[in-house]
């Protein structure tokens, strides 16, 4: 605390290098958080452009724009980019910006690790997408074409795009693990005096569980893709039956990571929701403890249900029944969260600014993801849904409506705090309504496509699927274009706009709203005391 007395807050910002070097060398949690958010937004558009090319190809039957090989590359890299380079960095960006502010800490516990964690991301993103460029120059045959799941033996057979993706996943994994260590250490050690674990903001709780899940499961993914790498180049046979291996082993390892990954993407959003709801309902969060226990329960359950991702691969009846019931059990803690969200709204005094609109949109659409997830858990019905567009629609309700709309909620909620300016409420509402309508226009037809029997990941389809695909493509393009409003709104808000006070929202409660907007370069040099 002696530093605080010799370096007054308003001068602290003068001590860092300027220009590019500032961003390269920064160890400030806000700078790093900002970089995470910008990186995430850029990659969101990169991944979005890829899938718009795919939707354009699927607008009509027949191959119009691309070869099937290229189509397969686009779908896989779209998923990898959206999951690892758009959604996960956005959540880490939130954590960097908000956790120190919320728990009354001056910065993250490990600032240099923080810097390193971020700067691993751009090289990884380049590794993922570089094979596209190399193929244009005649080197190799493009990016990974196995879908994001890397299933062996298809991935053993694939071109060098698979090696690029394996290395990219390694680097992204290291970055995520470092971020997680930092968040855990920060939450455990740097809370303001008096902030017990059961007074910790729910956003921090959500992230804490995410961080543990990342540390528990990412090494398994790293192991799986390393085994794949040695199968490809060093003569091992982990996934080759001819050498005593088993292709299904890869699926077990992959989904041991892959299923918790869903909750890794969603828990930060679930953590954020109570803050937003409580703010715009002007009413304290309902069921704080119940929500914390639900986070923990979902975290624990998420690592024991993985095989429901490949029921069709065939497994013994007891295994089918176990994985079905354990998956269904997740609906119980999830229902507690829904109950608490709605109970927080109940008898509040609601207003519907953009963050609240996104929060309500999130609850409804994520509800569809949860309910369709419940029926997907049923092994018998899953035999029809699996590998079909029904599943595609389901997980986009989970990861777009649940994940990305959750991130948008957070961006609109905290952007005035970060910039000191209010964004355009008019554009924000326009963005919300366009997003919600076009999202449903894109994905509701995909539920029906799946039921009618259209497999996923096909570049061309039978004629009975034509109408729904055309509708879905129209929806996707409106959805994609609507996001330009989002980017423009953020840009103009960063550049200027009406000044906001420290509290920003009438009903906002919590330490982060005690600091000025934007907060000083070094926040909480004197720790607040929680009574």
């Amino acid at each position, binding site marked *: 605390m002696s530093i605080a007395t010799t370096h007054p807050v308003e001068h602290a910002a003068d001590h860092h290098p300027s220009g590019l070097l500032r961003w390269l060398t920064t160890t400030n949690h806000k700078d790093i958080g900002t970089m995470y958010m910008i990186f995430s937004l850029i990659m969101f558009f990169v991944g979005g452009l890829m899938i718009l090319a795919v939707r354009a190809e699927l607008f009509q039957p027949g191959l119009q724009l691309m070869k*099937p090989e290229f189509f397969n590359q686009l779908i896989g890299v779209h998923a990898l980019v959206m999951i690892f380079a758009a959604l996960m960095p956005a959540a880490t960006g939130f954590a960097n910006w908000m956790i120190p502010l919320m728990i009354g800490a001056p910065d993250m516990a490990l600032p240099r690790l923080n810097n390193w964690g971020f700067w691993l991301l751009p090289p990884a993103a380049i590794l993922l997408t570089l094979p596209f460029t190399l193929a244009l120059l005649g080197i190799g045959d493009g990016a990974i074409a196995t879908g994001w799941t890397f299933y062996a033996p298809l991935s053993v057979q694939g071109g060098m795009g698979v090696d690029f993706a394996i290395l990219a996943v390694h680097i992204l994994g290291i970055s995520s693990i470092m971020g997680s260590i930092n968040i855990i250490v920060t939450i455990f050690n740097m809370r303001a005096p008096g902030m017990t674990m059961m007074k910790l903001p729910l956003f921090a709780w959500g992230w804490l569980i995410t961080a543990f899940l990342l540390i528990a499961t990412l090494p398994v993914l790293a192991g799986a893709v390393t085994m794949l790498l040695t199968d490809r180049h060093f003569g091992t046979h982990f996934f080759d039956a001819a050498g005593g291996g088993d292709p299904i082993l890869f699926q077990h390892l992959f989904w041991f990571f892959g299923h918790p990954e869903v909750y890794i993407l969603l828990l930060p959003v679930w953590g954020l929701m109570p803050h937003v709801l409580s703010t715009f309902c002007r009413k304290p969060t309902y069921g704080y403890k119940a929500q914390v226990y639900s986070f923990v329960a979902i975290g624990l359950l998420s690592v024991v249900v993985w095989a429901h991702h490949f029921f069709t691969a065939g497994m013994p009846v007891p295994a089918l029944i176990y994985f079905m019931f354990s998956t269904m059990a997740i609906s119980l803690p999830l229902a507690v969260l829904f109950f608490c969200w709605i109970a927080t709204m109940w008898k509040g005094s609601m207003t519907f600014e953009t963050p609240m609109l996104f929060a309500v949109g999130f609850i409804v659409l994520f509800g569809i993801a949860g309910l369709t997830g419940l029926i997907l858990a049923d092994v018998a019905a899953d035999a029809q849904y699996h590998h079909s567009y029904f599943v595609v629609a389901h997980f986009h309700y989970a990861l777009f409506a649940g994940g990305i709309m959750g991130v948008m909620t957070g961006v609109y909620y905290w952007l005035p705090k970060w910039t000191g300016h209010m964004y355009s409420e008019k554009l924000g509402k326009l963005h919300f309504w366009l997003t919600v309508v076009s999202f449903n226009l894109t994905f509701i037809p995909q539920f029906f496509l799946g039921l009618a029997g259209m497999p996923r990941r096909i570049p061309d389809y039978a004629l009975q699927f034509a109408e729904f695909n055309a509708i879905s493509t129209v929806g996707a393009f409106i959805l994609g274009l609507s996001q330009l409003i989002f980017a423009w709104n953020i840009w103009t808000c960063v550049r200027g706009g009406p000044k906001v006070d420290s509290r920003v929202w009438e009903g906002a409660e919590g330490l982060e709203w005690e600091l000025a907007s934007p907060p000083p370069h070094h926040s909480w040099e004197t720790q607040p005391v929680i009574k």
Partner: protein
Amino acid sequence: MLNCVFRSQGADVAAANTRCRVRRRVFSTAALTASGTAGAAFNFNFPEPVTPIARETLHIHNEFMLIITILFVVVFAIMIYSMIKHRKSVGHQPAKFTGPTGKMQWFWALVPFGILLFIDFVLMGIPAVNAIITMEDTQTRADMVLKVTGMQWKWQYEYPGTDVKFISTMATPRDQIANAEAKGEHYLLEVDKPVVLPVGKKVRILLTSTDVIHTWWVPQFGVKRDAIPGFLRETWVLIEKPGIYRGQCAELCGKDHGFMPVVVHAVPEPEYLAWLEQKKAEAKAAAGGADRAWSRDELMAAGKDVYDKQCVACHQANGQGLPPAFPALAGSKIVTGPLLGADGRIIKDSHVDRVVNGKAGTAMQAFRNSLSDVELAAVITYERNSFGNKVGDMIQPAQIKALR
């Protein structure tokens, strides 16, 4: 409705099915949330089921859809009511509670939890367990076996106990896919040789693969099972109604994943037996063909047929391939290299070796088991003397037979 569900828990699921059928029909119409008037182009539900499993699956699906629709409507009706009544603009003052206070509130907080527990593990769980047990019972009273082998990008069907074995590839012309000609009615869902099965017989289906993982799926059968290289997986169908049923590979298996249809002709048993006899005779005739000497023109003509079905997807009609994943045959060192060693055996990594044994870790599969002696000899001869390759030699089916 509840009656119906509980009755299906009983041991005799089939009997319960019949009893519930009428109710179920009403039920499924109600469950079609989007529309009761499904047009030809807009299917809002599973296609018509033709096996007991598919009917069971459709029933479960409809039931679950109804349950989750009710949950959705009830939960969000409460939320929307709150959003209308409890807003600042109508002057609602916020309450201060942060959890259940008093016994009644605890009761109301726990009721939804209890309802969900009941839905998960009783209402949905019990029919699901019954369905799983039925679905996985491939062996009880099975009448026959069909072996299905997935390979990039076609299906091989075998009738164990007979010599009948054939490969089924997509019949849709490439020009239709490239939009150069009008698309036919069964665009992408038509094959050269459909698999034929008898109706009313329980067919145990064994699945495997020669290269990567494929998934055999016919939506109207309600089964979908992965074909995994090096392992056998199984499922079963009992088709109740004659007809032509179409499906597709459902697991991403490489570039032509979208062009790997499944077509099943379900016919009455006498018709099936007649077809099987005819196939047996064809197999016998083909096996005999390996013993006679073939002329080069005959081999070239037969070779082109095989090439156009088995090889063209990767190596292309002009033999230029799609490098680097799928190398060119035109001017290839392997194709234009020596045919066999001085001792009459296969030279490692030679043309014959590649076609017969494939290349591990690539899409080049071993055709040893999927093509006959005649087909192998023909296609090898064809490749050596086409696309500008002028090796001039040929290999006889009898030579291939001797190499096996």
